């Protein structure tokens, strides 16, 4: 519930801010809001009277076309594959595939600190646990991006959450419960409210 309210506020503020931007490009949208988006962008609506309803360029994307690349995971769990992970298995994978950059225990390596009570660690600075799964699967390890199996990613996610004290070391992380892992950093996140004008923010 809290997250829904947060996302609603995010959308509201961002859409509100952006709608005041005016540009001199091929056409201007003076008051963009969700309602107006609905009006002008349903496919039967033409933006420019000289334009056809559809140019007809491009082809339909099949389910297979989309599934080939659609790997993102959202904070509410949309996109998470089936699977589960535990910290002890994650620790073994971590030592082989991650420790050389991130340190034996998630800090002290050449690259980002992952485990720490201070600074920008997963425990102190990451607002959503789902981001961890998405990012590790998407592009880690650095020298073999995208090479980890979903189960390995679940194990690593469980290990890093447990090492940061965000879950218990024996907890099993699943498709179902990952979105509800409480991340302390979320409470600190605020949406940008700079809008131009004289105030320095």
């Amino acid at each position: 519930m809290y997250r829904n309210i947060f996302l609603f506020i995010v959308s509201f503020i961002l859409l509100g801010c952006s709608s005041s931007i005016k540009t001199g490009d091929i056409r201007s949208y003076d008051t963009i809001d969700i309602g107006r988006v609905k009006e002008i962008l349903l496919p039967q609506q033409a933006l420019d009277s000289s334009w056809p309803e559809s140019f007809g360029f491009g082809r339909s994307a099949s389910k297979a076309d989309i599934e080939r690349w659609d790997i993102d995971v959202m904070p509410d769990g949309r996109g998470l594959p089936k699977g589960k992970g535990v910290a002890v298995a994650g620790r073994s994978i971590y030592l082989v595939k991650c420790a050389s950059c991130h340190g034996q225990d998630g800090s002290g390596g050449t690259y980002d600190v992952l485990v720490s009570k201070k600074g920008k660690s997963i425990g102190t600075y990451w607002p959503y646990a789902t981001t961890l799964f998405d990012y590790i699967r998407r592009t880690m390890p650095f020298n073999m991006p995208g090479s980890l199996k979903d189960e390995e990613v679940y194990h690593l996610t469980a290990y890093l959450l447990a090492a940061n004290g965000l879950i218990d070391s024996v907890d099993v992380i699943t498709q179902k419960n990952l979105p509800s892992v409480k991340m302390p950093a979320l409470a600190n996140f605020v949406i940008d409210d700079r809008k131009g004008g004289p105030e320095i923010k």
Partner: protein
Amino acid sequence: MTRRQLIGRVAALGLVLSQNPYGRTTQAGGLPLTELDDPTKKLGVFPGKIGTRSTFEKLEKTTSQTSSRSPLQDFHGTITPSDLHFERHHGGVPVIDPERYELIIHGMVEKPMKFSLHDLKRFPSVSRISFLECSGNYRGGNEKLTPQQICGLTSQSEWTGIMLSTLFREVGLKPKASWFLAEGGDAAVMTRSIPISKGLDDAMIVYAQNGEAVRPEQGYPARLFLPGWEGNTSVKWIRRIEVSDAPFMTREETSKYTERVKDGKIRQFSVVMDARSIITFPTYPQVVERGWIEIRGIAWSGRGRVTLVEISVDNGKNWYPARLQEPVLNKAHTGFRFLWQWDGRETVIMSRVYDDTGYRQPFLKELQDARASRGGYHFNPVTPWRLKPDGSVVLADAVPRIRSNRDK
């Protein structure tokens, strides 16, 4: 050996000769150039298939493992030569075959579609001159820094492609659509969430930069381009757009491109680049002479147009308007100039910009106070330069907070 190589070697030989003791004596004495040094006395290079930069010009980006910076102090004008455009990428520059390239748009759309590069180029096209700046573009703390080192993660090009709204219209957005995910086809498989409103406002899918195909380092064969927004959101090598009803909260928009502000808060989706200016001449490591100096630089705003650039030549006590180079474009680097007669005494010069929202570029201390932060993303402070009596120029650190008439 080809003809061009031969001529190149002769030219190199000429350079060597001009540097031997005999050559120096000749030039110092003001005597006529030897025949070998006189370009009117030897045949030049014939037309080539591709142009070259003069071998006398040493323009280079400074590089690190993750980025390279544009040599702002060496530029004249506001278009960045494509090979000197800054780079920031998270998994290296990918090689993408344009024949195999595809952009997929799916999610909350009426018709999920895929577009080849050829398809993209058939849509009504548009060109726009606009800057692109990384939001982590502030360095300080050392007086021997060049503009390139301080804020070389900004560059400007003429971008050509299609409006993203044209593609959104083609696929049709469903009523709940409010955000989209932009995903790159590099090893980072870079992702950012963008509000649909930006996608409909001025977002572009660009395939050309300064008249030719976008450079690999800038997203070949096609990238997203979001005018005025932090560079990371203009996802390069774009391969997928997923329309949704909420932000995706990717790693880059949560644990990376966010900044600590007051009261322990972390500011998120701070995507617009606030107005900034920097003097690019005279700056470190240049050495100037007393007398007339044309102070030069660039100013820009991610929110709109530059309306005024002010110059101070007395450490912020007095401010005078600089001349702006027309045309002043929306969300674009704008050249400014200010003619000044330096008496040779030590002083500090600086510039500050105002944009059409009424925003004034802040001093470093104002930013630090407003955010309770020493630096980080979206730091755009006034950059002061100290001119020393010997003509050397260094970055000045202490900056007073003095208001001009405009602020009262």
